[in-house]
Structures are given as C-alpha cells and as structure tokens.
C-alpha cells in the first residue's frame, strides 16, 4: 500500500457543527409542521422553493433520507417493495426507493412517533423527466395534487422562454393558494427569492475556491453542504446565512493554504451521482495522493454558473447588483427565472460535455472518473460523450458502472482495481 506524504496542513471546518445544528432545526420544523399549523409540500431538489416559503409551507423532501440511503438491508427492501408494485429497474433508482418507502408505509414517518406526515401537494421545479414521473406516482399514491414548474430547455435560446416560466409560476401560486387555503405573501416570496440567489451564489463561490492548490475541501465535504439544496431549504434566511458563513471560512482556508486533503498530488474530477451507500468511493484514490476536487454534477446542482464564450465557468452577479428590482410578485418571479434559466447548467443537457471540459480546465484537474449510474438517467445523459471529449483533449479518464441506490449493482472491488490502474500513471 503506497504511503501518502503530508504536503499541506489540514484542519476540520468550523462551520460543520453549525451545519449539523441547522439540519436538525429545519428537519424539526418539518416534523412539527402540522403542530405549528403550517402547510406541507412534498418537494426538494433543484429549487424555486421560495414559492413555498411565501405560504410559510414546510417541505418534506421527495428524495430518500440519509438513513434510507445508507442502511443496505433497508435499501434492498425498499427496492423490492417498488419492484413488487411493478416499478422496475428502469425507473430512477433514487426516487424508486422513496417510492418503496411510500409502499412500505415508512415515508414521512415522524421520528419517535407512529404517525406519518401527509403533505398537501407535490411541488417541484422540474428538470429531469424521471423526477416528474416519480412525483406523479407519489401524488397518486398519497391522493394529493401536483404543482410543477418546468424549466424549459431550448437550445440555444433559453431567454425566449422566460414568459413560459413566468406563466407557470403565476399558475403554480394560484394553485397553491387553493390547495393551502391561504394567500401568497409576496413579501415572503421576495425574501425567499433573494435567499435562493444568496444560497446558490455562496455555493458557487465555495466551488470556485476549489480551484486553489491545494483545494480547501474534499469533494465529500462539499457534497455534504448540498443537503440544504436537495431538501429544498435554500430559500430560508438561516440557510443562506449559513452558506455565506461557510463561503467565508473556505476562502480563509484558501488564503492560509489549508487543504481538504493534505496529500493532494493528483486533482481528480468525479462525475455523475455517487453510490450513496459507500463512504469509501471518494476516499479511495487518496492512498495514491489523488483527491476529488470537483464535480460537474454537484457544482451545477448547488451553485449558479454560466459558461462564457471562451469556455470558462463564471458566477453571475445577483439581480439587485444589475438594477433588477425585487418589489412585487412578478418581479420576484422574474428574478427566479433570471437565476434558473441561464445559470442552471444542469438544464443544458447537450452542452454538458463542453461544460465538463471547461470545468476540468478551470479547476486544473489532472484526470476524471465517470460514474455510469444505472439508476440516475438524468445525470447519465450524454455522459459518454463527455468521456470522448476528455480523451480527445488528452485528459485521462475512466468510468465505472453502478447504481447509486442499489448495492447489488456496485462492484466496489472492480472500482478499486480500476482506480489502482488509473492512478499508476501519476506515480
């Protein structure tokens, strides 16, 4: 086993304890939503949750919980439950295990109680068609309505579809007013939109800080921040405040030369979703001095970026710095459109290979590892075209197959052997 040299100082992130506290608080708010007289939406992933915030609604995440992702026996049971009901392996693996939890009656189970939370509505800012179909099945199963806002992808003229985004958003608000039986508070909407912007900008800046050598964070730590976005809490003031605090700490680490991984010799890009049940995948290259510093999947999921004409990744400036006013419902929704339509790279499926190449260059990546996920169709789309582009550009790349939520579909030994061979070139 190769010995890793310590090249850079490391230290734990101070803000992690704050993050844990905040996670507990928002989860607690969700579990107590009914007692607190709050409406409840099944939602999460992607964004536009400021719209829910305008109703004081709490969010029960549609994604499975960490407990469900990590408990291998439980994951197998959830998969089986979905399969028994006819939802086969073709369906999105992440949302399928959530579906399994619906069928087993454990979805939304309040910790320590026998009671389950029943949301009033399924709400999503929809991006992937698998997500849309899975959300439809949840709504069916729970007998509740759906309200979705679709992110139009029109190559190459996204801005032209702003009107469609706005029409849907106004429509969604009207629908939610009926479902929740209360009016939309436009002041809270404005505040929520501002916070969504702040959260995404701070995450983009944290991602940008990863360009430094050594990178201030391990990718694993970066991903742990993404939880608030996944769970649909980016519109909350305390979440935006937390992200800005984390950004300040990460930038300070860069100034002081503090590393996420002290043995950083080879900077790697990990692409695609991770096998959630394995803690070791991201750590494994460390024994060769390799560390994952960047990921298109996670950077674009959580931050706001666009690619300039030379192919560099840029962070947009917030609307209030560009003279766009946030003064009423329509202007708030326009600022949401202004955030998601041009800056959610995730949505530009056919540009992904070029985005990834730009990322590899801007973040000084030495090599890339691609996870071909049998369970996440959304992220696996055009992934192999990126592999071709990387090879053409002379960036070493390998891929491995797995299913992000099905341990039976992941051969960890094979992954490790591939990494052993891959890292050999930098010895």
């Amino acid at each position, binding site marked *: 086993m190769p010995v890793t040299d310590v090249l850079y100082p490391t230290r734990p992130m101070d803000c992690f304890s704050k993050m844990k506290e905040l996670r507990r608080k928002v989860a607690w708010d969700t579990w107590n939503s009914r007692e607190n007289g709050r409406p409840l939406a099944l939602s999460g992933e992607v964004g536009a949750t400021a719209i829910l915030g305008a109703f004081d609604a709490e969010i029960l995440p549609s994604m499975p919980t960490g407990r469900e992702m990590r408990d291998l026996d439980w994951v197998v049971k959830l998969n089986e439950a979905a399969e028994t*009901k*006819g*939802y*086969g392996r*073709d*369906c*999105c693996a992440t949302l399928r295990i959530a579906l399994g939890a619906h069928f087993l009656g454990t979805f939304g189970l309040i910790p320590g109680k026998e009671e389950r939370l029943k949301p009033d509505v399924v709400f999503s800012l*929809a991006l*992937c*068609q*698998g997500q*849309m*179909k*899975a*959300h*439809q*099945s949840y*709504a*069916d199963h729970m007998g509740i*309505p*759906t309200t*979705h806002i*679709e992110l*139009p*992808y*029109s*190559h190459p*003229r996204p801005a*032209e*579809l702003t*009107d*469609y985004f*706005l*029409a*849907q958003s*106004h*429509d969604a608000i009207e629908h939610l007013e009926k479902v929740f039986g209360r009016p939309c508070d436009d002041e809270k909407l404005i505040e929520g939109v501002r916070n969504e912007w702040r959260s995404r900008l701070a995450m983009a800046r944290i991602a940008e800080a990863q360009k430094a050598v050594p990178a201030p964070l391990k990718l694993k730590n970066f991903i742990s921040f993404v939880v608030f976005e996944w769970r649909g809490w980016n519109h909350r003031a305390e979440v935006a405040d937390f992200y800005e605090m984390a950004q300040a700490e990460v930038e300070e680490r860069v100034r002081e030369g503090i590393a996420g991984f002290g043995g950083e010799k080879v900077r790697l890009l990990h692409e695609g979703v991770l096998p959630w049940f394995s803690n070791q995948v991201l750590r494994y290259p460390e024994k060769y001095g390799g560390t994952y510093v960047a990921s298109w999947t996670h950077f674009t999921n959580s931050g706001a970026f666009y690619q300039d004409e030379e192919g560099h990744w840029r962070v947009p400036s917030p609307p209030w710095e560009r003279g766009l006013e946030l003064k009423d419902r329509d202007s708030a929704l326009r600022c949401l459109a202004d955030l998601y339509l041009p800056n959610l790279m995730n949505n530009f*499926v*056919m540009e992904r290979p070029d985005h990834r190449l730009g990322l590899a260059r801007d973040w000084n990546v030495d090599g890339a590892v691609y996870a*071909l996920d*049998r369970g996440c*169709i*959304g992220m*696996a*789309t*055009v*992934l*192999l*075209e990126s*592999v*071709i582009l990387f090879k053409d550009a002379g960036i070493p790349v390998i891929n491995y197959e797995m299913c992000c939520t099905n341990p039976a579909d992941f051969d960890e030994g094979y992954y490790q052997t591939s990494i052993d061979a891959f890292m050999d070139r930098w010895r």
Partner: protein
Amino acid sequence: MSAMYSKFHQAYENRHEYARAYPGRGVLGYMCTYAPEEVAYAAGLLPVRIVGAHEPESVTAPHIFNMFCAYCRDILAQGLTGKYDYLKGVVHVNCCEKIRNAYDSWLRHVPDTHGYYMFMPQYIWHKGAVAAFRQEVDGFRRSLEQDWGVSVGDSEMDRAIEVYNENRGLMRQVYKMMQEDHPRILGEELMAMGLSNQVMDKVDHSRLIREFLVQVEGRSGESAVRTMVIGQTDDLGLAQLLDSMGARVVVDENCFGLRYFWDQVESGGDPLTAIATRYVERAPCPVKDAQEPRRRTTFVTDLAKQYGVALAIIIYPKFCDPHGYDSPVLTEALQGMGVEVLELEQDFTIPLGQFRTRIEATLEMLQLEVS
C-alpha cells in the same frame, strides 16, 4: 378472409429507397412524434421518422450507456452506420432524456447533420404551454427558411395541414372498422399502415389507404380475441404473432400507431397556433403525461371500452423509464375493467419464442373465462 394487403408492409420495408428517390427538396428525419411535421412538409421537405433496424449493433457503446433503451441505441446505430445518409437534417423535440442522448450523439458524430431542436412542454396542461410551443414551432419554421432558402408562409402551412388532416381522417376511418364484431383487417395490416405512415409522404400514404379500403370492402370478418397494443413498438413481429394465434390487434395506443395520427390540427386561424395546439393537446405519451390528473389512463381505458378489448399487451423497450412508470397504473386500471393485461419487454429484437409461450398461456386463460 382474403389475402393480406401487403403494400403498407412493403412501403415500410423499402423506406430508405423511397426516401432516396423522393422528388421534393429533401428528407428530414425526426426521432419523436412530437415533431411538428406539418412545418417541414410546408417547406417542401419530407419528414420521416427515424426507426431502428432491430438488429444487434456494435457502434453505440461509446456514445450511449448500455442501460439506455434499445430504441434510442438502435436509431443512433442507423445514423452512425450511414443508413440515413440521405437526410438533410434531424429534428428533435424534447421528450425523454435517453433519446436526447441519441440526438446529441447523432449531431456530434454523423457528418454534415443539420440539427433542429425544439423545447416542448412536458406539463402539457399548463397555462402558456401552447404559446411556448408556438414560439418554438415558429423558430423551427424560421430556421428552415434560412437554411434551405425557402418561404414557409401561412398558405404553405395551410396546405400541409390539409394533407396531414386528410391522412389522419382516413386512418381513423380504418380504425373505426376495427370496432366491428368480426374485424376484416388483420392486426399486422393495421400496424403496417401505422408504421408506413411515418416514413411516407402523406399524399402517397393516403392513396394507399384508399386502395386498401376498397379491398377491405369485399372481405368477410373473423372472430378473434380482441387485443390492444399499448406502449411503444415498431416491430411487426408482435402483430404477426397475434394474428397467427387467434388474437387480433383491434386498436392500439402505440407511438408508432394511434398516438401518432389520432388528433387533427384545427384549420382556420393562425396555422402556427393551430399546429402548436394540436401537439400540446394530442393523445399524450407517458413522458408528457406527467401531472395529476392523468390523461393517458383515461384515454387508454376509453379506447379499450370503445373497441371491446379483452386483452391488452403493454410493450415497450427494455430500460424505458417513462413507460415503466405508467405500466403499473395502466395495468391496474385495465384489470379493474376486466381486461386481461400482459406486459412484455422488447430489446433490439422481439423474443418471439418467449412471447409466444406467454401469449399462449394468457389466451388459454381468456378462452376458459369466455367459455
């Protein structure tokens, strides 16, 4: 029953020769039936559906992950191996992620491809969906004008709408006949009519339908287990198999059949709005039917009632998730109305032997229930 009418079948088999000899401005391929073909036709181009060859292939592995559906890999294989080298361009309207991968890879690796991409709302009930799609259809019209130096005005579009609507009307006439107690048309003929429709000029296809209708007039019908094919299949093997086993496809809800032609464009008024409305409001595919209340379930069960269906076969390509999500819901709804349901999965080719055994077992059960 008189001999089978095989011209639809032949037209489908000879689709590449037909397209190569097409006398118009050229041929435009499309991958998804949400492509507003009328606009391309109005520009003097022949829109044809890109279809698979149902043969094992070895060229798509570097481009499309092997857990993506066989259909999108099969069509990409046709592009990469030059089967569609006569196309002037490829048009794609967003539907599922997998086929978007096929489109993207096609643009990257099939030389000299003009690509036309359009956004098409997935939440088709939303306020603004028609307006958004109209904008995209108009963008497509303008791109065609610019790329091929043609003018696509309202009169050209009205004429195209007329040709397409006439064809749709004739197709409906044939489907209406399938409601007879003893259908005079074979399932294979019905499916071949649908398939050939997607690769021919509608004027030629309508001529064939008229000829077919005359021939059918003199036929006597037969009783058979009334069967509905649901999902996505472009392989005639299944209909042939059913015909040979005493089951008859009397109706379908197939992307290569009824879903493609069922709805007309309302003529009169702004043709772009009329076209956009038709595509947004047409019989939905599972990708587009993603909201509550579901439209597709009602559409399928209504058809099953109208056509007195006893057996429904849900068939779609392996690794197709949109169909995978709908299948349990459709099964439950159909079973709830007393229809027997059989779910079959298709890869590059149809495993006929395996299908035969499963269909036989189901038919035996049905006969028992009937007697």
